[in-house]
């Protein structure tokens, strides 16, 4: 050991940490991908249309950092939330960063469970959501049917399930899509699509101004389901009705964030829908 020290001509310069080394992937993810206020607005619209009232109890399956559940309980003093996720480290991050910002009263109205969404733990909800295509981890009809059945069971009698799906002619091609934010670039990487199993492998990378990259910050090994498949499965497990909400476009053809229920659409390069199932 001593000899080794002598052999070193001089101390290595301290390497300035790259931005990718110090950035927090969960914080980046929340900034880049999540708009909980928008989701909540949609939940209110869709729920009110079906039930004529406001939902109070939200269940966020695959909640991750529980950003949405935290925003939910902060949005109204009567609102409660249940967050379910398998990953303890991500839940802990959520507790430290999202739940910590809540008022003591709001914090009492949120319960996070480290659990499998198939097990149906926690109180019954007015509205259950599985956003960001998280249920696509279930790659067989049997598993997805089991999950939807579990959702149905943990909803109140007049409960509503809201989920999302993406698709379009560009959903099945290998492509990297970049979106710039203030201090980083979000990269959505569709690395693989297998047409005989419908499996897709996607990554999220983050690029920084100092040219560093957080490679594969998140990786998704999914089956890319289609809208009719989801509708059929929801009806099979016993949901009473299933609606698909399609996003309107502005004059430039860009999504305007306004969703409307629809029965007939033309395929596009890329689309994202909300699927709303009523118990």
């Amino acid at each position, binding site marked *: 050991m001593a000899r080794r020290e002598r052999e070193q001509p001089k101390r290595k310069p301290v390497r300035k940490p790259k931005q990718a080394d110090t950035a927090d992937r969960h914080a980046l993810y929340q900034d880049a991908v999540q708009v909980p206020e928008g989701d909540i607005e949609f939940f209110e619209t869709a729920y009110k249309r079906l039930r004529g009232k406001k939902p109070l109890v939200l269940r966020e399956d695959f909640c991750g950092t529980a950003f949405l559940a935290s925003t939910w309980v902060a949005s109204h003093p009567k609102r409660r939330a249940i967050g379910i996720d398998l990953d303890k480290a991500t839940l802990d991050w959520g507790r430290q960063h999202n739940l910590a910002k809540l008022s003591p009263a709001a914090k009492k109205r949120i319960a996070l469970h480290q659990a499998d969404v198939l097990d149906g733990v926690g109180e019954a909800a007015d509205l259950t959501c599985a956003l960001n295509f998280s249920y696509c981890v279930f790659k*067989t*009809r049997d598993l997805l049917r089991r999950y939807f059945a579990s959702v149905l069971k943990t909803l109140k009698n007049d409960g509503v399930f809201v989920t999302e799906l993406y*698709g*379009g*002619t*560009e959903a*099945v*091609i290998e492509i990297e899509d970049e979106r710039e934010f203030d201090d980083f670039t979000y990269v959505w990487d569709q690395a*693989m*699509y*297998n*047409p*005989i*199993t*419908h499996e897709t492998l996607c990554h999220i990378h983050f690029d920084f101004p100092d040219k560093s990259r957080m490679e594969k910050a998140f990786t998704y090994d999914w*089956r890319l389901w*289609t*809208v*009719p*498949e989801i509708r*059929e499965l929801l009806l099979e497990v016993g949901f009473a009705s299933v609606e*698909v909400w*399609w996003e309107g476009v502005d004059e430039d053809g860009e999504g305007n964030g306004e969703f409307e229920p*629809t*029965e*007939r*659409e*033309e*395929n*596009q390069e890329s*689309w994202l*829908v909300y699927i709303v199932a009523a118990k």
Partner: protein
Amino acid sequence: MTTKTQAQTQAKSRRKTRAALESRATRRKRATAAELADRHDLYERSVQDPENDVATMARLFKRYRGRDPLSMREDFCGTATLSVEWAASREGRWAVGVDLDVPTLAWGLSHRIEPAPPEVRARVQLIEGNVLDGLGPATDIGCALNFSYSVFKTRAELRRYFAKARETLTDDGLFIIDAWGGWESLKPDHDKRKLDGFVYEWEIERFDPLTNDVVCHIHFSFADGSRIDRAFTYRWRYWSVMELRELLAEAGFSRVHALWERTDEDGEGTGAWFEPRHVDDQELWWTYLVAER
């Protein structure tokens, strides 16, 4: 008994009569190529390759069953040109064709079956009926090609069809269908292919991602500017390979093989089919699924 010479003479006189009739018609108004053309004939020349299908299906049967298949059932047979090709391909082979559409069956009877040699003709049976009814004898191979099963738009209906297709197989029978896809396939498109004496046009009018309903047309156009618009129209549900695999399994098939065609260095299909676990998606592709009873 009609000798070959007699038959030739008859054919010649028939041609003469037809020519006379045609020239009479021409005097009034020259008939367009579209008016003179036969859409079934054009269809066969555009999209069917029965010789190749017969060879592939027989090869696949031997691969999975280790014996030569004798019988083949062609569901949605249309003009039954595949059935005739099957019966003609080897002594002892026989075929059953099932279709709902009487005019198309009649066309096949007069244009494909009756002109075939008697021993071939005797080994082709046409059934006017619904493929859901499981009519006719059990066969070694059952097939539904050119995506014809896509007329069934619900899982329940397609499962019912697949279950029937399984029932009407021999104990070690195979059910063979084709499937298509690719990232260029599910959007409006109008593809033209120049063939001998006409242009074949494949149009995807619309694809609805909410239902996977797809509306397609085949048109034929000719050098004189005439065309047969919407010679064939298909109102289908697009079924993806995974959906088909799942439904075949649910219908009781013991194993389902999703095949893929090997390509040469130029990316052209070689006619060799293998069973990969993973393939890269392409702009457009079609492939076979083979289900073991």
